[in-house]
């Protein structure tokens, strides 16, 4: 704990001159008010400055003379009066590059920067080893550390990690990327030495289940664990389960991304007794089974669940519905989830506040599921629907039942037209923010908005061909306090529109391949009980299909409505 004292306080034994100049404004004394003030006196009622300064003319000369005297001092800089704590505060407003440059200005700045730096990101190549003592001599107050190694270099190993952990005992957050040489010994020592570590995020490392277990066995303060692309997770008989270790009572958030055999985290998820948030992104294999054991083991405190591009079906959703305190659910591109699954959530998770669904245009979640949400989840504050096609039936129910709905986003819905917007405008009294993207709405919808939603502060309209700039302008002028954000795409040529479609990048970073459109329909019919490997294939088919859809949407807006019935290419 030797370092804890130095984290917050900045030693006063530096070479600044706070005592050498007991009256720091001495130089100011002879100057006129006008010279000093950046702003003229405006309101004498507020501040009655009851003095007039003398001899403004000679002030400058006097100041210069003063300055010359000061030049005798060892550090005669113009802002040397600034206490270290102020300088440290200034540095907090600078990025790492600027801080680096500032550290080279003078000794005092180097010292202040070093002692006030809480975040550090290091290039974790193996040859940093010899520099570690001097680096951490200088930065002795680090609480957030990131070690990143690029793919082509040899990363630091356990020796360096142990050395670093000994120098940074107050570390609260630690992030490692691409450090392939680190193994379980290093991870165990890290947890042993950094007793206050609250967050660990590791990506593209190779220490596998053993490394995670070695770490968790000692990580008694850990609250958040994020694991991405961890190598060395095996399946089948060789699978080593990952358990909560010492973090069982503190761990609140688990985030798993792009893992093969991520199912070996099951006992960790079940064993984390304080778990509030579970995020699973793009992890291969069947996740229903893991989620089902959650319902058996009663991970009851779960408040937030994110599922993205995952093989999870209605069984998994039914399992999640046993978390009665669930407030936030994100279902993004989980093609096997249907209305039935969403209904089971609605029936039991009555505290649901935020719901995000990206239906991936599979039409498996729609009116029925949303109507159930509307009936059972009156606390809903935020609803985001992407590629979902609800009709006025469920929209009507949502708007009249969810009286707290403040934020609503409707993207790429073929069924959201002016009538639906009108319904929202008249019934969503609490709505503050509305986003409409790629929906067949027109200026009429904007008109409806102008007259409704009394609490609306922000409207965003993107890629809606029916809305003209006049419509947006009209809305602006009729609702002065409303921030209206509109982009116009109407005048674009179809091909251009496809090529320059920013949303394709926004959603998946993908480009257009219109010819792949037929694959989407094929993929949508993959049975929900598909095996792990077929799910991988299905996933890629889906992402390709998505590309096609995105491109196609721009070609002929009017034919989009029929896409789900026929898969013929309009071009």
């Amino acid at each position, binding site marked *: 704990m030797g370092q804890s004292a130095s984290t917050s306080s900045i030693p006063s034994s530096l070479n600044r001159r706070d005592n050498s100049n007991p*009256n*720091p*404004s001495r*130089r*100011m*004394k002879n*100057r006129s*008010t006008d010279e*000093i*003030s*950046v*702003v003229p006196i405006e*309101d004498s*009622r*507020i*501040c*009655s*400055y*009851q*003095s007039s*300064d003398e001899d403004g003319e000679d002030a400058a000369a006097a*100041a210069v003379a003063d300055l010359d005297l000061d030049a005798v001092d*060892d*550090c*005669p*800089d*113009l*802002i*040397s*009066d*600034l*206490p270290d*704590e*102020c300088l440290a*505060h*200034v540095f*907090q*407003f*600078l*990025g*790492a*590059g*600027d801080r*680096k*440059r*500032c550290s*080279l*200005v*003078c*000794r005092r700045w*180097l010292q202040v920067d070093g002692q006030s730096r809480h975040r*550090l*990101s*290091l*290039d974790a190549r193996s040859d*940093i080893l010899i*520099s570690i003592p*001097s*680096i951490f001599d200088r930065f002795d107050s680090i609480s957030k550390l990131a070690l*990143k190694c690029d793919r082509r270099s040899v990363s630091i190993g356990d020796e360096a990690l142990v050395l670093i952990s000994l120098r940074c005992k107050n570390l609260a957050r630690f992030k490692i990327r691409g450090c392939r040489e680190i193994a379980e010994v290093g991870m165990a020592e890290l947890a042993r030495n950094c007793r206050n570590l609250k967050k660990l995020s590791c990506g593209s490392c190779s220490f596998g289940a053993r490394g995670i277990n070695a770490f968790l066995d000692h990580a008694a303060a850990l609250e958040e664990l994020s694991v991405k692309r961890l190598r060395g997770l095996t399946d089948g008989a060789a699978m080593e389960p990952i358990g909560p270790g010492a973090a069982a009572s503190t761990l609140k958030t688990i985030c798993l991304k792009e893992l093969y055999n991520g199912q070996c985290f099951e006992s960790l998820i079940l064993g984390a007794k304080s778990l509030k948030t579970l995020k699973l992104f793009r992890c291969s294999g069947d996740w229903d089974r893991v989620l089902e054991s959650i319902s058996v083991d009663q991970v009851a405190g779960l408040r937030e669940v994110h599922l993205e591009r995952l093989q999870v079906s209605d069984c998994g959703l039914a399992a999640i519905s046993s978390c009665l305190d669930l407030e936030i659910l994100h279902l993004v591109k989980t093609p096997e989830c249907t209305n039935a699954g969403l209904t089971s959530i609605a029936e039991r998770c009555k505290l649901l506040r935020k719901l995000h669904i990206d239906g991936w245009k599979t039409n498996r979640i729609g009116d029925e599921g949303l109507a159930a949400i509307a009936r059972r989840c009156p606390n809903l504050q935020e609803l985001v629907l992407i590629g979902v096609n609800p009709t006025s039936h469920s929209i009507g129910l949502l708007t009249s039942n969810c009286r707290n709905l403040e934020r609503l986003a409707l993207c790429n819905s073929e069924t959201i037209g002016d009538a639906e917007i009108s319904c929202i405008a008249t019934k969503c009294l609490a709505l503050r923010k509305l986003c409409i993207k790629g929906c067949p709405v027109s200026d009429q919808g904007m008109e409806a908005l102008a007259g409704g939603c009394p609490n609306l502060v922000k409207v965003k309209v993107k890629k809606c061909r029916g809305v003209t700039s006049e419509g947006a302008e009209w809305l602006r002028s009729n609702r002065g306090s409303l921030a209206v954000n509109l982009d116009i795409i109407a005048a674009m040529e179809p091909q251009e529109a496809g090529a320059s479609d920013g949303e394709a990048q926004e959603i998946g970073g993908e480009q257009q391949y219109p010819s792949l459109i037929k694959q989407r329909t094929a993929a949508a019919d993959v049975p929900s009980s598909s095996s792990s490997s077929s799910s991988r294939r299905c996933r890629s088919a889906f992402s390709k299909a998505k590309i096609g859809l995105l491109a196609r949407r721009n070609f002929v807006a009017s034919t989009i409505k029929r896409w789900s019935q026929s898969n013929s290419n309009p071009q």
Partner: protein
Amino acid sequence: MASTSNSTSSKIITLRSSDGEVFEVEESVALESNLIRRMMEDDCANNIIPLPNVTAPIFYLVIEHCKKHAEMKDNKEKKKELRSQGEELLKSDPHTYSNLMEAVNYLDIKSLMDLTAQWLADFLKGKSPRLIRELLKIKNDFTPEEEAEILERNRWAFD
């Protein structure tokens, strides 16, 4: 202009700077300072509150900026304007800047602490160590060896 509209009802606080000037300031403005707030809570409110570390011209600047800051709360334009004033001050009179920030720090006014820090930060952004030294008349007290060593260490940190 919230500060002016309720000026009739607001209490006036009297403060004395280190060089003996007396200021009458609206309570709402004075309470921006956590130091003054604490002093008032300790029941010095009926007397003149002494500010031994702040001179009159600097205190005047502090008050002005407190008012400006209150006005700009929801006004992006003014925010920008206020933020850009820092460069002017730092170029023309770094001493005053330094004294202003020190006073703000002493008076413990969070909003102005951030504003004045932002000024210097904006001023430093993108400038080389040499240029910073030149503009602020800071002496380079490193030996060439030390400078080389820092450069070498900096190499490991990501921008």
